């Protein structure tokens, strides 16, 4: 399809619980990116993939965050033992190339609320 599909739209977790977010990139896009957007609009880069390989993971808090992009499956971002500060909107984006002349196509995001 021509859109990046993110599920679920909303996720509520108690502190310490696990959260798993999914992203289906646009068919034919080789690159997938995860960003975290917190209250004041700030976008924090988390991780990127080129197909199923990690391309850049310099933004990932590795102790609790992990991500995968496996063939024939949606990409996923998992947070073990969520903390209050993980509350944010998590956006997935995909692109044909990097840097891509058509920019990144973003999904609608998953709003994670940790209570």
């Amino acid at each position, binding site marked *: 399809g021509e859109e990046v599909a993110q599920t679920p739209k909303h996720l509520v977790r108690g502190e310490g619980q696990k959260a798993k977010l999914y992203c289906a990139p646009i068919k034919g896009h080789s690159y997938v990116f995860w960003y975290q957007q917190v209250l004041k609009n*700030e*976008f924090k880069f988390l991780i*990127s993939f080129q197909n199923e390989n990690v391309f850049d993971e310099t933004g990932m808090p590795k102790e609790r965050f992990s991500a995968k992009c496996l063939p024939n499956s949606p990409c996923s971002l998992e947070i073990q033992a969520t903390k209050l500060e993980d509350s944010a909107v998590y*956006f997935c984006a995909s692109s044909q190339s990097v840097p891509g002349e058509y920019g990144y196509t*973003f999904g609608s995001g998953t709003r994670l609320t940790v209570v």
Partner: protein
Amino acid sequence: GQQVMQIPQYQHVQEGEDFTTYCNSSTTLSNIQWYKQRPGGHPVFLIQLVKSGEVKKQKRLTFQFGEAKKNSSLHITATQTTDVGTYFCAGHRDYKLSFGAGTTVTVRA
């Protein structure tokens, strides 16, 4: 690390007026992209600038990339209510896209 600064943070505009948002990077960029995010929505790609001094126009929007490829601006003329949202610049360097903090635009009818 790479930092992209964007000002102003907020822009309150009378309908019909013009405004400009500015973006400045601490390092030279490969290219700069601009996105628009409506309230409650997701970022939507507007344009990419690659060449030093490049200027591109999309209807009432004019995008400019500085000669040193470290700064950029977005100028909107004759603002309309449909221009409401947050405009982000994003600088590309070393295969990583770093976003500015955005300029949130509200329009007074």
